[in-house]
């Protein structure tokens, strides 16, 4: 009697064990792959962030006899500006980076919604054509966009200056316009971001990134608009709402649950928009448009400071984590109004 019950319980435990372990078994291959391509580099990077890893150590890596442990010195140098790098202050870059992402989203979302609303007008001719066209920027690689816009803002041959030249000619000006979009250092609106110059390059990049950013927002808003029941507008019009009042009282609040996650996504995208920034301004002039990821890349590519770059990446990781936690919170706070 006793033995059978013990046997039973052993069998039972076995079954339970199998049930619990099975999912992990399934996950094992994925973990193995991730271990090699994600976790190993991650840990390796954290380790070298505490060293003075440089070109000299590339051959023997961690076994290199010249590799010195420097403790948290790299981190301290980054944050206090002790790096052998010109025009670099960590917090200025961080604040610019946040400002860059924020202002982009603040322009893209309203513009995207506005365009979506206009394209959603009943009886508008050629709706499908417009909708096909505005997918275009979404599918063009940011590298191409960055390069093309860099040329557009070229001082000598750029389309922007030529266009402006044409414009001032109409008003009797003879001199060609030669705005140094990507080189001019003195900020046109000095008070806008007091702790760092917002150079002309920033505005040029805002324009270029606008081209890149609004279609996605319009795409999202168009989908959301079509899911707003028409009878809400009819009810509102009977209730006495004008077109503008319907927009503010119905359209905007009902787009909110969809647009906020889209804005959060847009923010993180702009926050780490490496390709575009690197190819358009390269972070210049004088690192005024540098964002964290382009700076980290520069630390390796030009300065060969592997240890510092590793430490910098760890810092970026924590910044990204904070950004993620905040945005995640915002996203979750926007519940949908419809049936749960």
């Amino acid at each position, binding site marked *: 009697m006793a033995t059978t019950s013990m046997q039973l319980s052993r069998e039972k435990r076995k079954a339970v064990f199998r049930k619990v372990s099975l999912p992990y078994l399934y996950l094992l291959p994925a973990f193995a792959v991730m271990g090699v391509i994600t976790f190993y580099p991650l840990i390796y990077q954290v380790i070298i962030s505490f060293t003075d890893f440089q070109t000299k150590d590339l051959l023997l890596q961690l076994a290199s006899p010249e590799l010195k442990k420097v403790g948290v010195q790299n981190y301290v140098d980054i944050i206090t500006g002790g790096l052998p790098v010109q025009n670099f202050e960590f917090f200025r870059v961080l604040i610019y980076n946040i400002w860059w992402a924020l202002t982009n989203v603040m322009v893209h979302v309203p513009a995207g919604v506005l365009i979506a609303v206009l394209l959603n007008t009943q009886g508008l001719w050629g709706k499908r054509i417009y909708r096909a066209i505005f997918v275009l920027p979404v599918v063009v690689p940011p590298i191409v966009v960055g390069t093309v816009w860099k040329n557009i803002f070229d001082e000598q041959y750029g389309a922007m200056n030529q266009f402006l030249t044409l414009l001032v000619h109409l008003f009797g000006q003879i001199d060609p316009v030669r705005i140094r979009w990507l080189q001019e250092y003195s900020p046109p609106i000095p008070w806008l971001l007091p702790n760092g110059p917002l150079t002309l390059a920033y505005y040029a990049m805002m324009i270029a990134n606008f081209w890149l950013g609004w279609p996605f927002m319009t795409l999202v808003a168009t989908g959301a608009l079509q899911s707003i*029941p028409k*009878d*809400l507008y*009819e*009810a*509102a*019009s*009977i*209730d*006495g*709402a*004008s077109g503008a*009042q319907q927009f503010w*009282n*119905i359209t905007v*609040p*009902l787009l*909110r649950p969809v647009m906020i996650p889209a804005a959060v996504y847009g923010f993180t995208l702009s926050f780490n928009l490496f390709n575009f920034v690197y190819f358009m301004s390269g972070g210049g002039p004088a690192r005024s448009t540098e964002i964290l990821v382009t700076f980290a890349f520069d630390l390796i590519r030009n300065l060969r400071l592997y240890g510092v770059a590793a430490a910098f990446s760890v810092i970026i990781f924590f910044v990204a984590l904070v950004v993620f936690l905040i945005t995640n919170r915002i996203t979750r706070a926007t519940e949908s*109004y*419809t*049936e*749960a």
Partner: protein
Amino acid sequence: MASVTYENVYKRFGDMVAVDNLNIHVDDKEFLVLVGPSGCGKTTALRLLAGLEEISSGAIKIADRVVNDVAPKDRDIAMVFQSYALYPHLSIYDNMAFGLKLRKTPKEEIKRRVTEAAEVLGIQDLLTRKPRQLSGGQRQRVAVGRAIVREPKVFLFDEPLSNLDAKLRVQMRAEISKLHQRLQTTFIYVTHDQTEAMTMATRIAVINKGKLQQIDTPQNLYDHPGNLFVAGFIGSPAMNFFPGKLRKDNGRLVVDAGDFVVPIPEKKAGPYKAHADKNITFGIRPENIHDENFVPLNIDVEKVAVKVDVTELMGNEIFLYLISGKNTFVARVDPRSSLRVGQQAHVMFDMDNFHIFDAETEETIR
């Protein structure tokens, strides 16, 4: 406080004529029900009145003012949508207050009206909730409440009960009727449910294929349908129809339905005399067909031979599905009837209550 008039109103969607020369006059404080089968143009007619669709031609008047070019918000109407169309992001209170806020009504006044309407509808406890936290019946009340607080001249309802379960529908029917008595305002109510129409309306307008068929009080529509469509649409179960001929037989006028022949009583024959030898449709309601053994006193009856096909016991009555030759029809007989499925029997047609329609024009002969 307002009358409503449709004058030669047409509405076309492309080639589709959704509303076809509609002429209706609704008096102040009336409860008019627009009823008809699906797709007949009821909703369209209502939306034209609300200003949500533009009329193709004709005129619509509210309180003797032509409103063809008046915006919905300036027509002084309120509408309850079939979907309720509550603003999902606003609380119940704000849903009801929305129209008043837009009209810049003072805050205390808004509060007074919303609370009052909420009390009338029994939704005081729901005011802070969002629409999605409400049941279908509660949402329906909120939709009505939103209309009430506006204190409009005319209330429009588009099938407001069709999303509710049967029991709640009966209850809300009574409540809307009560509301009408209380508010003393013009109600225009669209439904495809003839029971709803019969129980609530002061007058019913029956519409089919965009055309007004007949407009009258529920009782008159039931007793004196103007044509075949109205006769078949009003009443449940529907009136039985038999194609046949009017014929003279030994000097008496008879209805010859092929499988049976019933003479028309002399006192009712008057209007039919001119139509002898015409093709007609003979109509009789199920409750005017009786079990041979349970015939009410003092009515003229005619015996018709039938076979019982199906019986449905309803408790206080029995529905008999009967076959006479190629005709099948329904009788609503006394619950004591002992007729059984498959039985050959006789039923009695009440010849004081029948209808005869011209087979060609489908108009009632009278």
